[in-house]
């Protein structure tokens, strides 16, 4: 059963008592007693599976109104494990803050994975990791690839890498867009379902976009829709720039990603080896773009080259669109 199988009244009613929704590998009980937030989530989480209770939970989160001497109706509080998290918030901010709380759960708990701060999209089982440099247009590009490019969303915020396999597990949440990217996406991909826009957050005006059913279907398959990282791409939006894909030095990519990861240090040697395996398995690029379609074309070209290389001869994976010969298995390796 998915959220969309319920009527909105039924969903509203259940949210007040707690519904367990599956987000990738995680079982999350959400209790929401803010009608407008539950309404928005009905739209944003339509294709997420509902888990029958009782079930062992990964996270138990709630958003409740605070009733307090007249100021009450305008304020809300968020809870994790039944304990209040963060300071009380203006009720209008509750939707993005609740989405942030869900992200926070995934950022800070599942240390069975190396948790990188990055968007991840995949074509078949080949994943592109887009590290999260603020302001680089990661979310916008990610939205374009998912809604206009036939890529599936693994996550807008985290790459969950399993140390023993090197594979990335999807845990998609609705993508958060901010400010000027909102009208661009709304105009270019009118079929993308958007939640209400919320003004005055720390990031300005934000809007969340429903995860498309196609991404959810893969995440619900056997194996959980895991994908092998094949490319690390640092996107950089430049108004008016021609699309340009350049190889990026791998060792520097390692350091950038490690510094920004959520639990690289925590995992110690496991974190190091896991990230080194990811970098080993990937071509690394800097991507400069201004037009989303051009950027999508670059991604599609990478995917088709990789597919044809894989089908023609599995052992001789060479070449990149820029002809740098930056092949994953040509690197030297060893102890210094």
């Amino acid at each position, binding site marked *: 059963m998915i959220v969309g199988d319920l009527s909105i009244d039924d969903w509203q009613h259940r949210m007040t008592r707690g519904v367990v929704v599956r987000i990738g590998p995680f079982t999350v009980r959400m209790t929401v007693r803010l009608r407008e937030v539950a309404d928005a989530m009905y739209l944003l989480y339509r294709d997420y599976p509902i888990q029958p209770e009782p079930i062992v939970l990964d996270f138990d989160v709630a958003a409740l109104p605070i009733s307090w001497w007249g100021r009450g109706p305008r304020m809300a509080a968020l809870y994790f494990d039944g304990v209040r998290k963060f300071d009380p918030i203006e009720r209008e901010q509750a939707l993005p803050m609740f989405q942030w709380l869900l992200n926070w759960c995934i950022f800070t708990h599942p240390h069975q994975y190396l948790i990188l701060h990055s968007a991840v999209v995949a074509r078949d089982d080949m994943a592109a990791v887009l590290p999260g440099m603020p302001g680089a247009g990661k979310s916008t590009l990610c939205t374009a690839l998912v809604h206009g490019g036939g890529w599936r969303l693994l996550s807008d915020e985290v790459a969950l890498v399993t140390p023993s396999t090197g594979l990335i597990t999807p845990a998609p949440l609705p993508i958060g867009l901010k400010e000027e990217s909102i009208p661009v996406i709304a105009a270019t991909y009118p079929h993308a379902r958007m939640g209400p826009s919320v003004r005055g957050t720390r990031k300005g005006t934000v809007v969340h976009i429903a995860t498309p059913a196609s991404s959810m279907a893969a995440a619900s398959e056997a194996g959980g829709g895991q994908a092998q990282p094949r490319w690390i791409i640092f996107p950089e939006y430049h108004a008016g720039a021609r699309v340009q894909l350049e190889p990026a*030095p*791998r*060792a*520097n990519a*390692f*350091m950038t990603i*490690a510094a920004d990861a959520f639990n690289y*240090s925590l995992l*110690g*040697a496991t974190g*190091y*080896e896991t990230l*080194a395996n990811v*970098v*080993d398995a990937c071509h690394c690029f800097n991507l400069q773009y201004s037009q989303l379609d051009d950027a999508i074309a670059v991604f599609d070209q990478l995917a088709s080259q990789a597919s044809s290389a894989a089908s023609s001869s599995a052992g001789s994976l060479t070449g990149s669109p820029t002809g740098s010969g930056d092949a994953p298995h040509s*690197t*030297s*390796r*060893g*102890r*210094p």
Partner: protein
Amino acid sequence: MSSPATTAPVRWRVACPGDLRGRSWDGVSVVHHVPSGDTQLLNALAAATLQRIAAGAIGVEALVEAACKDQPAQPRADIDRQVRTLLAELADVGIIEPDA
């Protein structure tokens, strides 16, 4: 060794030899020191120098000598400065230490 005239030469060694991991891509290395949890980005000269220290306690003059052979085009003074800076940094985070 190469410079017997130096007074009280310090020989350097890796603090916990079994606990150093490294990979290199295109001549640049990323080294992880397990006990301190420290990860360092090292250029070719730095990686080769650390490799030599890991092979056995060695003095700064011998390290400079070997680095000069690797990169004959670079002035010795530059290499000397680079090696000494590197040793100070690695000692500071505890990856290497003086051999008593």
